[in-house]
């Protein structure tokens, strides 16, 4: 493991964290605004979060 690789993976994970945080926060907001859409929003949120998470893992495994 070289230091640049570790730093790169860290940066990628920061990006992923920001992305998933955005998704979660926005989904929360939307759920509060329209509680009847709860189920659909949750599904969409999980799918989007899972897709972004994949990038994070790819970065971690590249180290």
């Amino acid at each position, binding site marked *: 493991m070289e230091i640049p690789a570790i730093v790169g993976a860290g940066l990628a994970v920061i990006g992923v964290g920001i992305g998933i945080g955005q998704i979660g926060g926005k989904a929360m907001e939307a759920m509060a605004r329209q509680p009847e859409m709860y*189920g659909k929003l949750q*599904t969409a949120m*999980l*799918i989007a979060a899972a897709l972004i*998470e*994949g990038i994070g*893992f790819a970065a*971690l*495994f590249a180290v």
Partner: protein
Amino acid sequence: MAKKLVFSVLIVLVANFLWASASPVKDTVSTYTAEEKADQKKSKIKEDIKHHLQDSHDFHLFTDETTGKHYGFPLPVILWDEELHVFMSSEFHHGENIVQSKDKYYELHHGKIHRTDESGNPVYKIDKDGKYLIDKNGNKIELKPIDFSITKNVFMIMVISLMLFIMLFRTNKSYKKRGHLPSGIGRFIEPIILYVRDDIAIPNIGKKHYRKYMGFLLTVFFFVWLVNLFGLTPIGVNITNNIAVTFCLALLTYLITIFTAKKTYWLHLIDPLGNTMPWIAKIPLYILLVPIELLGTIIKPFSLMIRLYANITAGHIVLMSLIGMMFVFNNWIGSSLSFLLAFTLGILELLVAALQAYIFTMLSAVYFGSAVAEHEHDEEH
């Protein structure tokens, strides 16, 4: 209620402190300084984690540190090396012995079976003139048997499949006996099946086509869920930690997608924009767009594979490191803090086990949905 909860948590904490101070970890070697001991423990923990993440040829439960005795049971080794070799893995004596099977010799080295000669030296590939064959890097190529052994993972997959079989057949039987009211384990299974049908399959695939995918979706959901839960038990199996397992699951999703895909799916792949613009305008776009769409069909199952594998592996590594930290700290405050952390993370891992099964099933359903979708693409844009 809240008072009671706080009180019981306090009792558990105090009990933990008392227990920790009453039974200090015995140090077998007392000549080392504290720092050296911590270093030894750290490397031991690293080794243990590495060992835990690997598949093995015997079912190892635990080791008695004072006597160095291993407890567990052996599993059959099945090798194909010009002819079939079958023997129990106990004959290796945890990698210390060389096993003779028919006229060939094998040894277990770091969880992999190698061919050796009588005295335990590796055997290399030889061409007709008696010269060693050499690979690209100039190393000799070792002769390796093809390993079909029933390893720990394979064994546990069999056990879990059997459990699923019994559970689901009992559910099935209870419907035959009592009509629409399930009994026994069926009461636990029915809501989950209904959830997979009503919240995963129907919204993503559609009412018209969902039935033929239900078998696969339910099997994958229960299998991944149970396998992940077994990974959290102290027997220390981790099947979804093995990328071959998740690869096969993702491959099944991929094959089902492409073999049940309707004409519109393929049409969408090679002509994503449809009749929305004249064909001359499409050509420069499609040079980029079509390869991306085609690549996307492979990337989707690939990401399924990586996601499940990486989530479970990362969870196990973090959980085991936190448990290991208890022994590195070896004092009241640090150990109980890392115990609390490990405990909380363990509960989180229970959630992750179910969540990963859910996401795998959900994304499979989304891909199946895109394969059978008959939406009028032209009207949408």
